[in-house]
């Protein structure tokens, strides 16, 4: 399939004090339509920076991003972002939070229906009138995913969305997210530092190296869902990913 999102030699440097540091260096990769790709890498290797550049929240120092044949600049509704924290608007109820991106862009009835469907889909039915401060971390993160999906983006960017949750909730949300993705067939870039999460979700795993930050190996995972991490093939891949990680930490 043709490349849907194309990153060409993206570089980003930051000035910290008088020092120049490269958060990303000549990073290139491609994502095809409908693909769920997991990016893993150790802390500080530039994963967040990469997603923020794709989302348009940060400007790359050099390089080009092409989505659907068009060069991207600035933020846009065709790219949905789910941040590490839920970032819900505290002054809006749960349903109003989910409706944030579509408010005023469609009829009230359609908006109401979209929000109700999404709440059902992410498992928040019955909490329409709750305030964000009344939600648990997992519920808030579900709401954040629903809010990003409401505008029907072409691509969903997720920055370690489950990392702040306890293990049980995380597993539950991973499963639910997988169903959601199978239902919507959205192109997703899912950043994580959890190897198990990447193996559970990804059709592809991209390993990011640090110093300088670059694309390391891309591993395909042509396994059906739901997956068991006890599967010998997956276990072998996990070993490989971990050894690549260790090699990265060494230098």
């Amino acid at each position, binding site marked *: 399939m043709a490349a849907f999102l194309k990153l060409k030699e993206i570089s980003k440097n930051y000035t910290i004090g008088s020092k120049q540091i490269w958060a990303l260096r000549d990073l290139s990769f491609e994502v095809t339509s409908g693909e769920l790709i997991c990016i893993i890498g150790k802390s500080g290797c530039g994963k967040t920076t990469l997603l923020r550049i794709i989302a348009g929240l940060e400007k790359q120092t050099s390089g080009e991003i092409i989505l659907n044949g068009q060069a991207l600049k600035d*933020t846009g509704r065709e790219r949905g972002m789910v*941040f590490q924290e839920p970032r819900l*608007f505290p*002054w809006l*109820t749960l349903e109003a939070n989910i409706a*944030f*991106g579509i408010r005023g862009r469609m009829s009230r009835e359609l908006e109401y229906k979209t929000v109700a469907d999404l709440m059902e889909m992410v498992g928040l039915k019955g909490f329409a009138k709750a305030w964000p401060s009344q939600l648990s971390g997992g519920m808030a993160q579900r709401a954040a995913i629903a809010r990003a999906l409401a505008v029907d983006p072409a691509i969903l960017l997720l920055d370690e969305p489950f990392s702040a949750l306890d293990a049980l909730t995380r597993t539950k949300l991973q499963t639910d997210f997988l169903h959601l993705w199978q239902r919507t067939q959205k192109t997703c870039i899912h950043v994580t530092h959890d190897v198990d999460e990447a193996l559970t979700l990804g059709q592809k795993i991209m390993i990011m190296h640090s110093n300088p930050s670059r694309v390391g190996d891309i591993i395909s995972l042509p396994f059906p869902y739901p997956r068991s991490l006890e599967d010998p093939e997956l276990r072998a891949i996990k070993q490989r990913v971990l050894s690549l990680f260790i090699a990265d930490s060494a230098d």
Partner: protein
Amino acid sequence: MTNVFKKTIMALLLPFVLVLVWELFSQMGWLNNYLLPPPSGIMDQLFALAHNGTLLNHLSASLYRVGCGFGLAFCLALPLGFLLGLVPRVQDYLSPFLNFLQQIPAIAWIPMFILWLGIDETSKISIITYSGFFPIFLNTMHGISNTDSKLKEVASTFGLSPWQIIVRVYLPSAAPSVFVGMRLGLSFCWRSLVAAELLGASKGIGYLIQEGRELAQPDLMLAGVLMIGITGLFLDFVFLRLEKTLLPWRNTQERREVPKWQPF
């Protein structure tokens, strides 16, 4: 409902005990009735004033001044606080000057205001406006400039224009702060009222106190003081209720402390 009832009882307990002890001591003749008239005497005075209509007359004159002064302060402070809150780094230029003004109590300005604006309503309302301006202005400015940039980012990923971000993110995010500023502002307006009225007024609660002094009637003075306290409390209560209805999401969150601005 029982909770509200319990809270009211708890709030009234201390004043009740104080008044009871005070009245008791007066009845026993342990207090000088001229220097400290008994609560019953003050109540008699209040009822008499209420009965012949003077109380309402004075109170409405005072409320009118505070209404005008606060309204004016609000109309000036809100847009200004808003604009300056949106401009980054403007606080570096403003803070020292505002700090300087903060050291000057409203009473210190009274003679100058009278010189500039005459002795009638204009100068009184100006004093009240001055007292109310800063808390509203500062809290609005802080509210706007402290808008969480993480939420601004969320809004911009949805492709909102700068104007939409102002209306849909900055405004609601600053609203609690604006409310705090308004509550403080109103309270400061009310407090500075008496200072403004002590100088050359012919009606108003401040004038009532002044009259009590001239007629050597401590019960009249204390009745005036009591009225100021009660009305202030009532206005604050109204504002708190208003905040609860207009910002329902705040009820589920813990409240944070706000910077205070002391005019006196």
